[in-house]
């Protein structure tokens, strides 16, 4: 392996790596930032295992993890907290990645599954399942699916609709955002309509779900989520090279040999899949996908949200916010309220500031 010192023009702050037939360029910040964030995720997760209504000391947590803890501690750490943290981390990872994919692809920092209506589509599915469950017809069918599957179906259906409606011999990023906002409005209206028809008890359950929460997550949610991410995350990371070219106008991208339609289809479907998987597991945790990629790109520098860093930062944000709601705040709020409280002002700032690239 050879690492050449930066000497050529335009190589400031990077290293060239060549190993046999493989070669690549790394920017130091693109290595250091995700590594730091990964450490933060692990630390937050570790703290999260011990903290909560029943604080458990570090020593006891470690002992429990290697199978030496008492039963009660074992139950709290391994059955209550660990799946919650794993689901939180995976959901954050998926949302961060999905946001980075959408934003790069659409060349628009507003493009995220929250703004494009995909998470609202999931809400329609979930709320329908909660409210109409047990009745006959389509509603009963949705209810029979259970909330996570209904949410998954809602997200996928909306994503597909978005894809079809934004399609015009390829997908234009601007059109994607416009169609997405329209879908968002329709889905929100549908959710509201369903809620007006709901019994009080159902409505409360539906509201908690819509907020996005990690309460009562078990390995039942963690395992299918981990399985789908095992496929989707590598697929997302593999699009990185063509995303770097898709960022340019369509003509430039195709002039550089990208098979535009195939590449665009791939990116959108992977992003929709990631969102759907995340939302099915924890509900629409608001704004993570919107803000995380923009923070990540400011941390690493460069011209587009870095995929890996966005994913890791999403994980850190979700489990960090969840830890806060479980420990610092007086009542255990759903994590989505905290992310929304941070995300909504950020969205406003983004709109007011009006990035040049969106005009």
């Amino acid at each position, binding site marked *: 392996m050879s690492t050449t010192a930066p000497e*050529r023009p335009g190589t400031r702050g990077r290293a060239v*790596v060549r190993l046999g037939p493989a070669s690549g360029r790394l920017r130091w910040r693109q290595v250091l930032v995700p590594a730091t964030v990964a450490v933060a995720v692990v630390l937050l997760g570790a703290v999260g295992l011990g903290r909560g209504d029943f604080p458990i000391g570090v020593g006891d947590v470690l002992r429990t993890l290697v199978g030496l803890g008492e039963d009660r501690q074992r139950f709290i750490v391994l059955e209550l907290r660990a799946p919650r943290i794993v689901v939180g981390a995976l959901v954050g990872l998926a949302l961060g990645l999905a946001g980075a994919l959408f934003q790069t692809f659409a060349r628009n920092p507003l493009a995220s599954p929250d703004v494009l209506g995909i998470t609202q589509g999931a809400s329609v599915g979930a709320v329908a399942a909660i409210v109409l469950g047990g009745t006959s017809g389509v509603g009963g069918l949705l209810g029979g699916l259970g909330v996570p599957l209904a949410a998954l179906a809602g997200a996928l259906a909306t994503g597909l609709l978005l894809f079809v409606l934004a399609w015009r011999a390829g997908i234009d990023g601007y059109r994607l955002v416009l169609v997405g906002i329209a879908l968002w409005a329709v889905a929100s209206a549908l959710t509201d309509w369903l809620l007006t028809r709901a019994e009080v008890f159902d409505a409360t359950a539906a509201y908690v779900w819509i907020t996005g929460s990690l309460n009562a997550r078990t390995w039942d949610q963690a395992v299918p989520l981990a399985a789908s991410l095992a496929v989707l995350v590598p697929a997302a990371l593999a699009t990185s090279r063509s995303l770097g070219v898709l960022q340019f106008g369509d003509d430039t991208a195709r002039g550089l040999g990208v098979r535009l339609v195939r590449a665009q289809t791939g990116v959108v479907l992977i992003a929709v899949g990631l969102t759907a998987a995340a939302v099915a597991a924890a509900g629409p945790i608001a704004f993570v996908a919107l803000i995380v990629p923009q923070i990540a790109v400011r941390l690493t520098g460069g011209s587009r949200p870095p995929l890996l860093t966005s994913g890791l930062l999403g994980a850190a944000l979700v489990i960090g916010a969840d830890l806060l709601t479980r420990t610092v705040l007086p009542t255990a709020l759903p994590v989505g309220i905290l992310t929304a409280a941070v995300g909504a002002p950020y969205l406003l700032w983004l709109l007011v500031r009006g990035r040049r690239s969106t005009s």
Partner: protein
Amino acid sequence: MTSLLDPVADGAGPVRLAAESVSLAYDDRVVVRDLDLQLTEGSLTVIVGPNGCGKSTLLRALGRLLRPARGQVTLDGRAIQQTPTREVAKVLGLLPQAPVAPEGLTVADLVARGRHPHQTWLRQWSRSDESAVAEALAWTDLTELADRPVDELSGGQRQRAWISMALAQGTDLLLLDEPTTYLDLSHQIDVLDLVERLHTERGRTVVVVLHDLNLAARYAQRLVAMKDGVLVASGTPAEVLTEDLLAEVFELEARVVPDPVAGTPMVVPVRRLR
């Protein structure tokens, strides 16, 4: 003027890129009608014509960005639509009229993107990528600006960065759509000198769309004039740039006198004809 319409006007060398009875349309609106054009190895062709006559559209079709409604484009004798995008991108580079760079992208990164068709998932930055980028930066005099974000450059510097990207792509054929927009006169000359060097020193086959008729006449080996989607004339600048043609294509009354420096035709406008 029929002899000027002869598609094989510049004779020498094999035909690299050709439009064969090509009609081009956006949706149902036909923009270019039944056009024949052959570009031979190592030629330097300049396309002129009024705004909206279909120059960019033609260039997009020649670069495989637009599928002809009728007829076909061939690259080295093979139908370009049947050739994989990536293979086309290795031999043919195209600079669109108004390319947009993502915010924050540095000049060096922009130019490096030109290597995309030569890279694979495994081989993302080979030695030839490195030298091609360094050379392209040097040719366009951008080495100094390599680490600056493209969106912070002047219009002219930005234009050079895009040309540099097209150069880094390392293709035999280059299609440049108005590469001199935004440039002051000396930088226009710079860019066109660069194009000429690519053509004479590197034997590249180049097609350039230009609006400045005098510069077009100065640099073109072969000049092509278009109007309303039709190829009106093709030949040496002296053959094409006549007072009659200027009246017909540009609706301009003009004198054509020899350029005191190069001897090529020089257009002195008199007034617009209506």
